[in-house]
């Protein structure tokens, strides 16, 4: 049987890595939001593991008897707080995703970004650069600086 501690740490760092990979690689907004949730879960697990000991008892003193090895209650309280924050932000993120979907009809982040850049450019009254390296934009900037 593999070492429990190793397994738990592996799980925590694994969740963190899956979360980061999901945020970086996914294009679908809901998947990205779930990846954030996974990342948070990994961070929470790591925080719990910070003072984890094999076979430690819950930090409750029953009938005046103090167990030999108690778990540290501080990280547990912290993680409870972090979970609550995480759930709140998850709900907010999903509701924002809903508004974005209603406005642009898509949840693909490349599309959403394109629409958003278009909106910003329209509002500002400038042409939308076709790519981030559009020569037209640079030329205009040069003309302006030369003028």
């Amino acid at each position, binding site marked *: 049987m593999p070492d429990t501690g190793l397994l738990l740490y592996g799980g925590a760092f694994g969740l963190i890595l899956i979360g980061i990979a999901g945020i970086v690689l996914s294009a679908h907004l809901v998947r990205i939001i779930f990846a954030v949730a996974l990342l948070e879960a990994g961070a929470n697990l790591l*925080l719990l593991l910070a003072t984890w000991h094999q076979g430690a008892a819950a930090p409750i003193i029953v009938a005046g008897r103090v167990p030999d090895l108690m778990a540290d209650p501080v990280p547990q309280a912290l993680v409870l707080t*972090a979970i609550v924050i995480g759930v709140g932000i998850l709900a907010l*993120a999903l509701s924002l995703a809903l508004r974005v979907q209603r406005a642009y009809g898509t949840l693909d982040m490349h599309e*959403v970004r394109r629409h958003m850049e278009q909106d910003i450019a329209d509002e500002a009254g*400038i042409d939308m650069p076709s790519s981030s390296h559009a020569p037209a934009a640079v030329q205009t900037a040069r003309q302006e600086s030369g*003028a």
Partner: protein
Amino acid sequence: MNQLALLVALPLITAFLLPVVNRVSTLAARWLGPLVLLVTSAIGISLWSQLGDSAVAVELGGFRPPLGITLYADRLALLFALATSIGTLLLWPSRGEEWLRQSTLALILAASGSGLALSGDLFNIYVFYELVAVVSYGLIAARSSAGSFAATVRYLIVSSFGAALALTGIALVYQATGTLNLAQLSQLAPTHLNNLQGLAAFVLMLIGFGVKAELFPVNTWVPEVYATAPTRVSGLLAGVVSKLALLIIVRLLVLVFNQPEALTVMLVLGMLGVVTGELAAWRARDFNRMIAYSSIGQLGIMFIAFSIPGQAGVFAGLAVALHHLVVKPAMFLLAGRWQGSLDRLAGAARTSPLGAVLFILLALSLIGVPPLPGFWAKLLVMVNLMAQENTLYSVGAWVIMGGAALEANYLFRVASSFYHRSEQQTPPVAHRTRDLATASLLGAGLVAGAVLIMPLADEIEGVASQAANRDQYVQTVNPEALP
């Protein structure tokens, strides 16, 4: 000294009372928020005058540290708590239909921002940081346009990513030391965190808290958020909130992660921020994104300055940060009527002569033209960078000079177009009186800073020397600690 907790508690309670008060009297609800911020500002100023060279720590709920949460106020923390109150007051959200919700959010921002500045507990800092983040999502999306929702959700993802990384860093710190109290961490750091795990924890927290401080790889949200959010909110985020995140990082550096590698990481990321920010600002073609990118560059300078070891770095960084704290919100206030394409600004000086003059004043100070305060701040950074033996610091100095040259180019390009007469198009409409008045107030502050530069510099140096004093922090929070 227990009034310290009021800086956090008062706006927080008021925020949740506001909808109730609104049922009784709309007029009272409208004025309650600014009034409370006036009160907290007054409390902050009176504390400042009592504080002098000493510092105070308040144990919340009477629980002793390390289990209890401490609020710690030296002049640095108080300065930024005060800046949060006054900044929120000056940039109080405009009166739209959503004024009640906006006022509530602004009050929570003031409360959590002050908490962030004063907190002496790492996890507490994380909670306040998340609170600031959630409130700013609501403020950014206030215009309810499709673009603002998209920008908010993209910002939310970057910000949550950062917060989770910071939490991972906190977990690593707790694993190594078993405490989250900054004073206790400061005592344990030389033996427990002076290793690879400590460095990893610092880098995670640097990137995590760096999201709000517009640090180089995690600042993708900056241009789109500042382009879609109401300009007052952008001013608040760029001016005040970014400095609060920076304050956390500086505290961590001074107290806990006193390692040369940590400073080098920050120096390199700061330089990348200056280069990318200034280049992008130079290429930007609308007013909001130009000042948004320029703020990335400015915060890059602050990261470079704070990476100088010792008290000199804190002094130089603080000078640049305070300068930016005054200039950037004023810039965003001017953006209220000037947002949009830079081409539209031709002839803007005719409709808004005061606005044009203010912009030129702010631009000159941002670039660093004597005798404006921006010049002295940048000079301080340059002198201290050049004094370092490590060549990387001299590279940093050259990067800042190059950035200033680019800045001069694009800011003067805009300023000269104000005085250009264009036949085809009408110049933009004049500024709202309220925006212009607030911006003028900030501009007047800048001029006053230029006149009173010597006493001001002495004062800031005093704040910096106190902030760089680890022993005072430890002694104040935990008087029984060994010296």
